[in-house]
């Protein structure tokens, strides 16, 4: 194992976070705060409690998930896309590093960044609404698991993307709609029965539901199924990455 390489890449990526602090951390915090103001305070006060949880508190796990997903994807995809774009990837390819080490370093850094972000948003949220976390260990576990899984997903997008447009395409056209329709702002019980069924095909439903359960002990779907689905998605990402590196797809001529 080339630990020096993992450390070098990880620190390099984290240095990028600190360098672009405003963009990496401050702007998601601001936009999340705006959600709280609009949905939590302004509109939320007119919405009745959901399963005994005030609407302002109810959307906290969903909002954290929303940021966690989009940030994990954008951090990891940009991290690997940029060296490809400017050409510095030559060094990575000519270095004595295994694919596992490359993935651990890049995905590790992206997941660290988005986890930090998730915690910062949680802290921000607690300024707006009184929060009580029922299962803190599970909360952290879901946070980490989601950050890692979607950083892997972002890594795949970064390797796949041939230009900046494609880099934005998947987060914009797939992830954001899935997150909004994934029960971040509502319980899927509120939907008509048909749409409840359709929602079950949305992987984000399971993430949000599981994460919300760790806060309030209430969930749309069974917590075991939530965890299982997250792990399935993680496995799919891992297999895809394994295949990418085995074939050198989009990286090596």
């Amino acid at each position, binding site marked *: 194992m080339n630990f020096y390489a993992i450390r070098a890449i990880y620190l390099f990526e984290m240095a990028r976070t600190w360098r672009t602090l405003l963009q990496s951390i401050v702007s998601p915090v601001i936009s999340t705060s705006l959600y709280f103001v609009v949905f939590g305070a302004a509109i939320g006060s007119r919405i009745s409690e959901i399963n005994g949880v005030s609407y302002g508190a109810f959307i906290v796990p969903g909002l954290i998930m929303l940021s966690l997903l989009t940030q994990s994807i954008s951090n990891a995809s940009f991290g690997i896309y940029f060296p490809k774009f400017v050409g510095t990837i030559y*060094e990575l390819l000519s270095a004595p590093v295994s694919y596992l080490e490359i993935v651990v370093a890049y995905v590790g850094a992206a997941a660290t960044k988005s986890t930090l972000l998730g915690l910062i948003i949680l802290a921000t949220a607690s300024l707006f609404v009184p929060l009580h976390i029922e299962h803190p260990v599970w909360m952290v576990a879901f946070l980490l698991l989601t950050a890692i899984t979607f950083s892997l997903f972002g890594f795949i997008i970064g390797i796949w993307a041939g230009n900046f447009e494609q880099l934005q395409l998947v987060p914009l056209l797939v992830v954001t709609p899935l997150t909004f329709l994934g029960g971040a702002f509502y319980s899927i019980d509120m939907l008509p029965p048909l749409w409840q069924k359709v929602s079950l095909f949305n992987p984000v439903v399971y993430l949000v539901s599981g994460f919300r359960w760790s806060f309030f002990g209430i969930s749309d779907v069974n917590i075991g199924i939530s965890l299982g689905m997250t792990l399935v998605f993680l496995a799919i990402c891992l297999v895809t990455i394994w295949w990418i590196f085995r074939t050198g797809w989009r990286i090596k001529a």
Partner: protein
Amino acid sequence: MPQPSPYIAKASSTRLSFRVLICCKRVLANHKKLLAMQPAISVSNLSKTYASGFTALKSIDLEIKHGEIFALLGPNGAGKTTLISIICGIVNPSSGTVLAEGHDIVKDYRAARSRIGLVPQELTTDAFETVWATVSFSRGLFGKPANPAHVEKVLKDLSLWDKKDNKIITLSGGMKRRVMIAKALSHEPQILFLDEPTAGVDVELRRDMWEVVRRLRETGVTIILTTHYIEEAEQMADRVGVISHGEIILVEEKAELMRKLGRKQLTLQLQNPLETLPPELASQGLELAEGGHELVYTYDTQGERTGITGLLKDLNDAGIRFRDLQTKQSSLEEIFVNLVRKQR
């Protein structure tokens, strides 16, 4: 039973240890010889066909010796960069094997790659990093523990020390090129690839760079370079390889190449211009030039006789007088152009 004399026993054990010592010395000497014999890079039967169907390399065989400066010459698109990219792990070979210091570049990629440093042709750098950070990053990436003293030495050798805290984006093109060399040297490689290191680089920097290359060679680093400035290869290289259309068409000691393929020309400036060559001189490989003001005699340096003495005598006999004379040896560039032209 008679006891063996303790003296004899001692003598024989001394003899034995002496033998062991000699044996050890031999093994060591052999080992050294083996190391010296083992090529730094050994390419065999290497082919590359890109997904587009373009065949960049056709069954290349090439050995690069320890500690030499090897110049790989060839026209644009000949396959130089593809060859280097395969050896360094950036491009997958279609078939064939490459050993770097005896390590297979695919099966034993860690050992092979950690010994190689690459300065690619394109100036690609992390614009927002500082010089110090990017060079230290490269060292880590290649699996070496941090060593500020070494990084400092590399930066000083390349006159980058006073720029160490500057962001790369603020540096000039020449300085960026130095940064890329510094990155390639950060992990103390035994083999260094320089792909067109002097493209777009001013004279002074070019001179500095060759100075660094010479110093590296003195420390035993094997250097493989490609360049379009053939006079540089002529100055620097120990051996020259010429690649054209994906095939190595020649590998030769530079001095030998110059001797073998180099032709010399003797130019005689005549006192009185000639309209035609006198018939008695026509058969000697002479040509009239400059409107009859010059006689040019081309001869082979390898030949036993150059024929100069005879020619001068014949000229004297024919009453042709000359004001001045000069000889010129063909440069590596001319040799190269002729070789590549022949290939087409």
